[in-house]
């Protein structure tokens, strides 16, 4: 059986889907509530797809790092719990292969969750009469998928290196909560904080005048931001694999 097949078979009795459903279901509920309420009000800002993305991204910026953290923590904890890491290495699974397999599973789950969130935003906004904007939605989706990569890599490395999952969960969740400030932090600073990437790649930014939201204009240099997030994600993955391959778990 391939490394990926083994990983998937281990998940069968772990009920990971329940945890994912809890976090993702909550996020969807929150987004649907926010969009339903905000799109049914008369506002100064025009009700465009950018408006819907701007509203939903505030929620997703908090939840995306939390979901990624919880998933990688569960994936790593199942090896730590049964003291399985030495057994796997004795059975000739390389450290690099273990990291990449778990990374692929976590990235797939995060990507699937992202696709569901973006689709839900498009459907709810479309259902409220907001004109479709496929280009903007695809740019947002692409950015979010790439934004997950760096977070998954860093959190997975912590989860595998430290047996106590409190470490990885604290870092990831504090990162997620701090990530909720992404809209208020200049992109040049947010670029150094991977947990802020889901907020950083949001294609629109809230514009306010005297405390009133006046619109969600497109951000400048979105392509550069998405490319940067993708490069950092790839670098984190490569660095995570290399570090885990050469370190001893504690």
């Amino acid at each position, binding site marked *: 059986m391939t490394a990926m097949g083994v990983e998937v078979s281990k998940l069968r009795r772990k009920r990971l889907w329940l945890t994912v459903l809890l976090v993702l279901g909550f996020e969807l509920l929150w987004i649907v509530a926010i969009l339903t309420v905000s799109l049914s009000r008369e506002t100064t800002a025009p009700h465009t797809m950018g408006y819907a993305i701007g509203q939903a991204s505030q929620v997703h910026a908090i939840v995306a790092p939390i979901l990624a953290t919880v998933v990688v923590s569960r994936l790593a904890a199942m090896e730590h719990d049964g003291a399985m890491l030495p057994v796997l290495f004795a059975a000739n699974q390389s450290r690099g292969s273990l990291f990449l397999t778990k990374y692929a599973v976590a990235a797939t789950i995060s990507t699937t969750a992202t696709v569901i969130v973006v689709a839900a935003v498009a459907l709810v906004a479309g259902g409220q009469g907001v004109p479709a904007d496929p280009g903007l939605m695809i740019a947002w989706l692409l950015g979010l998928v790439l934004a997950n990569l760096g977070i998954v890599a860093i959190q997975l490395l912590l989860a595998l290196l430290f047996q106590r999952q*409190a470490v990885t969960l604290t870092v990831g969740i504090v990162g997620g909560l701090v990530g909720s400030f992404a809209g208020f932090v200049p992109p040049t600073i947010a670029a150094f904080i991977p947990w802020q990437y889901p907020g950083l790649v949001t294609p629109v930014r809230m514009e306010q005048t005297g405390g009133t939201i006046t619109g969600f204009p497109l951000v400048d240099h979105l392509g550069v931001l998405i490319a940067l997030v993708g490069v950092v994600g790839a670098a984190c993955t490569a660095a995570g694999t290399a570090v885990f391959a050469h370190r001893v778990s504690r």
Partner: protein
Amino acid sequence: MSALGIERQKSKRAWILLVVAVLLVGLNVFNGAGNYLGNADIFEAQGLTWIAVWGQAGLLWAILFFPFLITVRAASLTRMEHEQANWRRLASYGAHLRIYRGKIVLLAGFVLLCQAMFVAAVLVVSLALGFDLTPSDVAAMLSWGLLGAVGGMTVAAIQLLVGILVRSFATNVAIGLVASIGSLMVTLVAPLLEAVYPYAQIGVGMRVRALDWPTLPETLGYLTGNLLLILVAVFVGRLVLRRREH
């Protein structure tokens, strides 16, 4: 050795979470002070001083960061007993309920300590910003901080129960976080439910939205409601531990 002493011995690395608590208190109070300075002319026109800092700093602290700290601490305390079948070992010599009591007392101490740090930080920042704090202002900070700690104990008791029921540390934390962020939804969508939603109790006690003294009936209702929630959570926790097949 007392149950509390045993639990303290078992949590040798608890100081790490206290460091995180200090950082989060700092982040929130810094955010509150920054918001005050950014809108100083508006707040001065309204005659608001420390209360503006309290409201801004307390909102995210009460809704997100403080429940998160309590959740992680509670999950750590229960997780260690799920490892190597410790609940079974403790039950085999009838110590499981005593240990549970020790965990509740230890968590109560953690809640009080975190809340004391928050109140102290707001006090220091308020003095640094040059506010003239009257004894009544300090009394308000202490009272609201203490009421918030009662709400924190409610979250703690429920999270300990979740920790007894759910083995996975990550799932425990996820449940606590989702429930805590849920209080933000309750606050925005259905403010009337704030009074009964357990995870919204910290914010209600700290008066982060009302920003005024609660009336006596409000205070009594709040204390009674929270006491009831704590007692129910502890009762169910004991029941689960007693009836579980160890």
